[in-house]
């Protein structure tokens, strides 16, 4: 029996658990490759704790080399930005086309501020986390320079932005400085959150004297300065972007069916246009099935991903597949 080549694009939160499971219970006849740019995944749920200092940044990293060794999986450090689904090939810089039989995509989303001049150069997106952490540590170690009031702006007041604001506020205080933190959004603060959560978080933000700026249109960003359309300038020692969570562009250059840029999948995590493509985590959206973009969903999808990939492999050989329609529903209980 010829082996099937499973290629995992992105060492995200679903894939790390999938790999762990594949290491413990290998699927027979499956040859696995993980393609991802970095050798570590920052475990998102613990990022705030690391910012606060309860854990070291080392402790919140999941080592993808160890994990792929455990899963007997080949690991390639590249960012995928081109695939051909007819030929079932992935194109990587410098390499010959990389073939696959089954694809699973778990690449998360981007947090680059779109279309704001200077944003790329003078603000730091929270993702990739590794880059953010690098810059954050540099910032913290430079705080030794005498300066009492630390000004910092966070653009994007969704759950992530609010959480960051509170953590950073706490951290700066614990370093004996006075934080002055702006939380900026072009719409409402915590606008996407359910009413109860929103009220609670607004209360917390106020209690911690976070400066809230909603309905703000940023016109440009310069070194240490955010220019607002009404010509106000917010000066900041550090500008972070937790806004503009956007699906990766290259997905739209594939034949995959997308919705608003996210891979449309059914409840068995399969692309609705290509049954040999699975997708999970922030980069995918289940059709007619509202889920939020959060690590918790990516994590909970993993056992179903394992199950359904296994089913897919078996189906192809023994032509019998258990309907997996129901399986996924339990994720969003």
């Amino acid at each position: 029996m010829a082996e099937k080549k499973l290629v995992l694009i992105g060492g995200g939160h679903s894939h790390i658990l999938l790999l762990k499971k594949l290491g413990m219970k290998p699927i027979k006849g499956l040859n696995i490759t993980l393609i991802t740019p970095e050798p570590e995944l920052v475990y998102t749920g613990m990022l705030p704790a690391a910012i606060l200092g309860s854990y070291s940044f080392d402790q919140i990293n999941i080592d993808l080399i160890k994990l792929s060794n455990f899963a007997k999986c080949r690991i390639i450090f590249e960012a995928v930005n081109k695939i051909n689904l007819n030929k079932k090939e992935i194109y990587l810089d410098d390499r010959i086309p990389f073939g696959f039989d089954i694809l699973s995509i778990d690449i998360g989303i981007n947090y680059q501020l779109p279309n704001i001049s200077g944003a790329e150069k003078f603000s730091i997106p929270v993702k990739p986390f590794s880059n953010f952490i690098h810059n954050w540590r540099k910032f913290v170690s430079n705080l030794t320079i005498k300066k009492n009031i630390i000004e910092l702006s966070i653009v994007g007041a969704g759950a992530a932005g609010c959480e960051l604001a509170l953590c950073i506020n706490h951290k700066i205080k614990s370093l004996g400085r006075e934080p002055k933190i702006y939380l900026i959004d072009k719409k409402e603060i915590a606008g996407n959150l359910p009413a109860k959560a929103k009220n609670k978080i607004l209360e917390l933000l106020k209690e911690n004297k976070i400066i809230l700026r909603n309905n703000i249109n940023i016109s440009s960003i310069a070194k240490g300065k955010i220019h607002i359309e009404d010509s106000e300038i917010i000066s900041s020692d550090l500008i972070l972007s937790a806004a503009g969570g956007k699906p990766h562009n290259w997905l739209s250059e594939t034949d995959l069916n997308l919705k608003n840029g996210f891979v449309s999948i059914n409840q068995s995590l399969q692309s609705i246009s290509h049954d040999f493509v699975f997708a999970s985590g922030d980069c995918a959206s289940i059709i007619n099935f509202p889920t939020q973009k959060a690590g918790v969903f990516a994590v909970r999808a993993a056992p179903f991903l394992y199950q359904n990939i296994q089913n897919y492999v078996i189906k192809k050989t023994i032509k019998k597949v258990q309907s997996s329609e129901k399986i996924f529903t339990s994720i969003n209980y």
Partner: protein
Amino acid sequence: MFWGDVTLLGYIPWLIKDFVDRSFIKKFIVKHSMNSSLVEKHIEQEQELCGACGAKVGNKVLESALEKLPKNVNNMLNKIGDDAAIVYLNQGNHVFTTDHLRKFCSDPWIMSRITAVHALGDIWAMGSIPLLVLSHITIPELSLNDQKNHLDDIIDSADQVFKKEGASIIGGHTSKGKELTIGFTILGHTNKNPITLNGAQDGDYIILTKPLGTGIILAGEMQGLAKGLWIKNAHDWMMKSQGLISKFLTNKVNSMTDVTGFGLYGHLKNICKSSNVSAVLSIDEIPILEGALDLSLKGVRSTIFEDNLRQANTDQINSDNKKWPLLFDPQTSGGLLASVPKKHIEEVQSKLKILGLSNSVIGKFVKGGTTISY
């Protein structure tokens, strides 16, 4: 909830961190993943293989991997695919060397690249340029499809390295075996006298062109102690070609070698013995790979470490500096080690800085004695 003041965030549904705690991370601490078990995916074998011709990889698989190589090659009269290559040699001196490596990482493409650079080290150390290459590859029993993919990757990756240096793969042999092994035999050329171990002078500076520690990092990986970041960084260094550096150094050094299996100490000792000089190392100046010292302090050693240490047994081994074990760490695709006379040292140092080596000068040679002190 585990992190103090911000507990109330639990009101945000996606921040309910019941699944998020240290035990989650702990699930990912993989114990002891021995390398040998990495990607050995054996398919069931219907019949025992004969180790001689049975070990040969099917013609089709090989042909398709070789297909992508150029048909006409300098210094070669016939075309790839004949029983043997007919080569003609230019005037001058020729150097001829071979090297191979056993599987140490899960990606054959990277492994092939590193092996190519590793094998080229000998050519570069002689101040020569590579011309022709034979490959010898052993691949494990995979399904046919995989064999093809692996071979394609291996040949393509190595070919890119050699092409960049002006050399061509013109043939080789591929067989099936227990684990992936990649090797290259390289013929190189120089119009001048090749640079040897003999020639280091009293007062010459000792330079090293790559950080030490690949042996410790790879041993650390096998013991599950090396971080992914360290491993990837070590791979990146091992893949770094030294063709440019070698060309640049050729007329500025008195002797040169590449640091490989014997470690810095062993290879430096070879220069000392051949040139009848002693080496005084500034151990703090010696560049080392990120993570290598951490692992070394934990007692991680390559299996060849003891051999290397034993080789030096008549010498007084000084273990005052915590970096000392790195001197005996065997290197894969290690740096060039050369003696540079004073008149060139500034130029060499600043050139190497441009090429990304912040410190390359690691000591000095002094008259007589063939000892190494640090």
